[in-house]
């Protein structure tokens, strides 16, 4: 029991509970089953992408091109579905392939050309979004086939009370989040590559010295981020039933904010899936709560940005203090 309370994530849980209580007391509809399902459905994409971003940030890197990769992938599968088939399995295969290829490109730039991750991904983001606007001229794709729309409406676990005596189920999209969590958890905890990701984040030179192939791991990490973006893109289309080339503008900020809120160390080496999901939850609750409390979107942006900067400062200062403690050497 003590162990559970000692964990870093505990602070986040308490914070989230506290916020929920405040919001519920202001607006009672916050905890209604419909609102909860709405929050889940509205943030499932954010959660999926954040889990991928967590992996990237554990290496000490960052990927600001996620919005570009997702938007490009929605465009590819949107066109594919309109012109070929609305089969969800094929859509997922194509989407994941597209995302992975774009992610691998980032990985190659970061690992082999050794461009700082933020610069490399900012560059590819610009290329991707410019290309997309050129190709679409900003137009939506609206005529998504019915087969895919029906798939997006599917629910599972149809036994949950809806509060009015009926039952509701969980949206199918949550299953993809679960899949992301399980795969990522397995990689991070039980594979050599996963532990290598932590090792690189902790001390890249040491990782190299003991024989890790750092470049290969970095390529994998950015490729995996792309893979997850692909998965998220198809899932997103299944919710929105249309493709808006501008839907993800500025999305990378939300993802990074959620991951940082979740306690992932911006300097690398630390982060957990549970923490990240709690970060997303916190982000979602703050957002939803601020909306329910009728705070303007401008203020929402300001508040979220401030929270983000504050939590980074906190981590950095803590690190600096710790390293000062270690630096003492005795003198004869």
């Amino acid at each position, binding site marked *: 029991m003590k162990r559970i309370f000692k964990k870093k994530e505990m602070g986040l849980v308490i914070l989230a509970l506290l916020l929920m209580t405040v919001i519920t007391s202001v607006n009672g509809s916050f905890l209604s089953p419909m609102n909860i399902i709405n929050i889940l459905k509205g943030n499932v994409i954010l959660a999926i992408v954040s889990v991928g971003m967590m992996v990237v940030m554990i290496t000490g890197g960052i990927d600001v091109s996620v919005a570009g990769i997702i938007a490009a992938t929605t465009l590819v599968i949107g066109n594919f579905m309109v012109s070929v088939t609305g089969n969800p399995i094929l859509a997922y295969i194509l989407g994941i392939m597209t995302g992975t290829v774009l992610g691998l490109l980032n990985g190659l730039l970061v690992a082999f050309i050794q461009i700082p991750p933020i610069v490399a991904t900012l560059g590819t983001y610009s290329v991707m979004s410019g290309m997309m606007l050129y190709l679409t001229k900003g137009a939506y794709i609206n005529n998504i086939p019915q087969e895919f729309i029906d798939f997006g409406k599917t629910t599972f676990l149809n036994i949950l009370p809806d509060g009015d005596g009926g039952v509701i189920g969980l949206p199918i999209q949550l299953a993809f989040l679960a899949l992301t969590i399980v795969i990522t958890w397995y990689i991070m*905890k*039980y*594979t*050599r*590559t*996963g*532990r290598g990701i*932590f*090792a690189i*984040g*902790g*001390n890249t*030179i*040491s*990782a*190299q*010295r*003991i*024989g*890790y192939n750092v470049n290969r791991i970095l390529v994998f990490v950015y490729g995996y981020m792309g893979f997850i973006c692909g998965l998220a893109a198809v899932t997103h289309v299944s919710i929105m039933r249309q493709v808006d080339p501008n839907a993800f503008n500025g999305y990378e900020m939300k993802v990074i904010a959620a991951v940082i809120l979740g306690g992932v*160390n911006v300097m690398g*080496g*630390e982060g957990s899936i549970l923490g990240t999901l709690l970060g997303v939850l916190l982000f979602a609750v703050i957002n939803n709560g601020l909306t329910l409390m009728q705070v303007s979107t401008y203020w929402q942006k300001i508040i979220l940005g401030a929270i983000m900067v504050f939590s980074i400062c906190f981590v950095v200062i803590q690190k600096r203090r*710790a390293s000062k403690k*270690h*630096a*003492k*050497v*005795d*003198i*004869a």
Partner: protein
Amino acid sequence: MDKDTFIKLENISKTFPGVKALDNLQFEVKRGEVHALVGENGAGKSTLIKILAGNLQPDTGAKILIEGEECHTLTPLTSIQKGIIVIYQDFSLFPNLTVAENISISNQLGCKSGQISWKQMKETAKRALDTLGVDIDINATLDTLSTAKQQLVAIARALACDAKLIIMDEPTSTLSKGEVETLFKIIRGLKERGISILFVSHKLEELFEISSIFTVIRDGQYIGTYPLKEMNNDKLISLMVGRKVEFVRQAARNIGETILEVKDLSKAGCFKDVSFSLHRGEILGITGLVGAGRTEVVQAICGIDKADSGDVLIDGKRAIIHSMTDAVKVGIGYVPESRLTEGLILSKSVEENITITILKKLKGKNGLLSLKNKKRQAKDWIEKLNIKPGYPDMTAQKLSGGNQQRIVVAKWLATNPEILIVDEPTNGIDVGAKSEIHTLLRELADKGMGIIMISSELPEVLAISDTILVMRRGKINAVFDGETATQKSIMNAAILSDAGSGIVC
């Protein structure tokens, strides 16, 4: 070949651009011996370690025999698989991972399958720690442990990798006396298990306590291997010093009044009670082993990293220096150790680099930077210091090491300093260029400047210093007159605590 030999190296050379770090070195370590590797700063010890660890490849013609088998190329992974484990000064551990994982991580890398077994990992860690006879919580995160315990984790990792040769690079430099005792007990235990230890250290007392055999290298060359009973302090020091490079001694012409006085300067963890004075026309050499606190002292004088207590007097007046900008104002110029990282902007032109410290002075009538003045200044210094090739527009990285060093010197001379501090001014440049730098420093001193030169190269210190301070573990251990000091007396003072026979001025 001897059956007891674990590793044998022959014809090991390593050339870096402009410098030959190792020259036809030979070396042999037998099973179950504690072997001391000694040499001055820059003798090539680190290069040798890196080659053994597979992080550097020797030049062609090298022959490496491990347990009688020839290894053509060593990579970090094959080196570990052969049982060679290096424990670097920083331990190469992962602060964010648990003790168990830190110990077993190399093992997991060696496995064929890409899967991690946490159960196996914990067992491996437990076994290794038990073998060492130390009690550390394997579930603790590494950065919660003390330095001494982290070192034990690093040794446990070596054991978990089935180490046959453990190379320890300055293992005692961050340990207290009691912790050193524990470490030595553990090393003796490892020795009994047939594991060889290569012990690299500057602390002679410790080397004599733990090692049974000594190999000395100097200037990248093999000097000899000697058993403990044929070795003593005196002999070891004379083997380490006596480098072949000789420079013409350039003594001071006229030493003037005191310009800088440092009184009881102290900084916790870096240096203690440092006092000395510098005169016009004098070159003050500060030497000692790397890590003795030399650079820290001058950085404190320059205000880069402030001292905790003590005074700096300039021309007899107490100077308050909080930053390099303050230091420039009172007439101090500082040429840092690594000219490439701290002294030069490599991608900028020679002109930009020379004038960067004096841009304020180059204002034209309209208050804006005058490009004409800037070019004139740059050309002036290029001529004065004979920087070649003399094109102000050439990017700094295209120049040779010696000329890059001149640019850095020019940059500080442009600020018109009374006191010039140079840290390892000739590091990494060839002998001819070194002599030229020496002449340049002497000329500057003769014009009335006071110069402090930090250097590890004893021939260089002896060639141009008028007074020599030798630092050891944060304190000034001895002061010598430049005319009468010898390499051996300096080395004695740098290594031994009871040297003290210097001439106090």
